[in-house]
């Protein structure tokens, strides 16, 4: 049996309140770290600014999804009702002027396509789903979904250093600091 190879993922520090982790995040941002994240049981208000993150660009994709939805619905109805198989039902003629009768389905498909775009784009942006993550190796990390807050500075950050990052995390009020490793 050989010793498993391990790769350092980063340092994980625990905080006990939203207030503490908020100020710690501000200091981490100001210290110039880039590959790091704040883990919290709920979205902390104003954390994007505290981390120096811009607003999510998700809405742009959802707009595109919505436009695809409304176009699909229009083409589906126009092509089938007017072009391929024109049928006069209840004296409603088969031409472009009946577009008003197409609005409900156009509306519904806009919503449908936008909602699914929102879900899937959001998952892609969150880099989910994934079955495993090195953070799950850290014993204390499971408390992130209960009442603890964490800051994890990753080893791939150019400013990461085994000693300095650890003391930095201790300096901004982190406790229970541990090195998170990933088995290769």
């Amino acid at each position, binding site marked *: 049996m050989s010793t498993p190879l391990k790769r350092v993922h980063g340092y994980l520090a625990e905080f006990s309140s939203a*207030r503490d982790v908020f100020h710690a995040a501000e200091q981490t941002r100001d210290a110039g770290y880039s590959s790091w994240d704040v883990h919290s049981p709920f979205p902390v208000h104003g954390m994007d600014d505290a981390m120096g993150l811009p607003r999510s660009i998700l809405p742009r994709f959802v707009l595109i999804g919505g436009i695809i939805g409304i176009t699909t619905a229009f083409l589906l109805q126009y092509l089938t009702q007017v072009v391929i198989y024109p049928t006069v039902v209840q004296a409603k003629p088969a031409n472009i002027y009946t577009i008003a009768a197409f609005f409900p*389905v156009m*509306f519904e498909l806009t919503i449908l396509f936008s909602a699914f775009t929102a879900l899937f784009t959001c998952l892609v942006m969150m880099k*989910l789903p994934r079955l495993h993550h090195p953070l799950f190796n850290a014993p204390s990390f499971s408390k992130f979904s209960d009442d603890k807050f964490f800051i994890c500075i990753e080893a791939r950050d150019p400013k990461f250093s085994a000693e300095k990052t650890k003391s930095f995390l201790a300096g901004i009020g982190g406790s229970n600091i541990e090195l998170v490793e990933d088995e290769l």
Partner: protein
Amino acid sequence: MAEAAHDPHHPHATGPSRAKVLLREPLVLNQRSMSWVTNRICGIVENPQPKGWWYIIVPCVALVAVMVFCFTYLVSTGVGVWGPNHPVAWGWDITNFVFWIGIGHAGTLISAILYLTRQKWRTAVNRAAEAMTIFAVMCAGLFPALHVGRVWMAWFLAPIPNSNAIWQNFKSPLLWDVFAVSTYFSVSVVFWFLGLVPDLATLRDRCKPGIRKMAYGLFALGWRGGNRQWRHYEIAYGLLAALSTPLVLSVHTVVSFDFATSIVPGWHTTIFPPYFVAGAIFGGFAMVLTLMIPVRKIYGLHDLFTMKHIDNMAKIILLTGTIVGYAYLMELFIAWYSGSLYEFDAFKWRILHGPYTWAYYCMFFCNVIAPQVFWFKKMRENLLVVMIVCMFVNAGMWYERFVIICTTLARDFLPGQWDMYHPSWVEIWTFIGTFGFFMMLFLIFLRFLPVIAIAEIKGVLPESDPHYDPSFAKRDNLVAAPSYEGDRLENRPAEPTAVVTNAAPA
């Protein structure tokens, strides 16, 4: 000294500080901590279910069996085993469809419209209400699918190229309905699931390794609560709320188009869309309360689902009930004012001398008169009264659809066509069976998923504000209620009502 009494930061401040006087009623009572919230809600899933759960689910499963039998009988024999006839071609089937679809609307209202309007109290009820939406839409979908008669032809509803090269009639409100209801169901599931992800992660992190952990872990998608996830998540959640808001209004509007775009007197009215939407929200809120008041009691969620929530929801029932009452009266007025003989006659049949006048007055009493007791705070605080009124509303909303559909059709243009409508036993048991189906799904939901959105409720606690100062609580003499380690069954001190496994803390 007078200054000092009003300044909460003054070291010599006496009496209740200004901050405390102006304090809003907290959304979570007794200063519960985050871990208490986690333990209390996850405890419902992790502890054995109370006896009451078993007492309800066993008859529900039996009713589902009855429902399946009725459907099998219907499909194998023909749609004639139901009661619809000529002229009443839509009977209980469409009544039940509109009834169940309407029930669902409160869920989306709570999760979407109240989210956009920043009504933070929604966090305690939105999960259960959204679950209710999905289950109600599932019940609703059964009826139109089966009333087509030849169920194996139901795929004709979908715009799929087929060998006859015939396409659906997109100018028909019935096809709009197919799109509206299926979109509503899909979007509600997406919204519900996205909201569940952080809470599934909580359940995953509490489980011992095993099948449960794998199952929760799979559906939690590897959630790590990082702010680089939350920032997209929050935007996606907000967008889904913004998309669901017009969607929920459109669904019942389209449902009402099934009637309003026809030429049948009593159906052909422009008031139908807003009137149906208000009615749907009204009936849905009554159903949410009908489910949540017992859940609150059985699982001891008094600190999370507070009297304030019940009060707010009772007020919404009062408001929407009054809108519905206005619509009833306006319908009558317009029937006379329009000068249309047929329209006026249809309403005379409905309220004066028709065979179904009793149903109209049942509806009017249940939907308009009964909720008026909610004008009084004492009544909104009395859970028995609230439950009774909600039961009236549940029944009344069913009567509303029955009155609109069956009584209108029973008195057609030609007196020679007039006929009464009688539901068959198959129809009656199918309807009762869907209640079993609905309750069964809800109980399974209680058993496996967190009934209250854990992550969201933590977000409305005072300490979740990054600018919260712990000394505020001390200053205002807010004392945390005693909590026990883990709030798990085995760690809990003996309570007087120890038999009830999920009893509320004293």
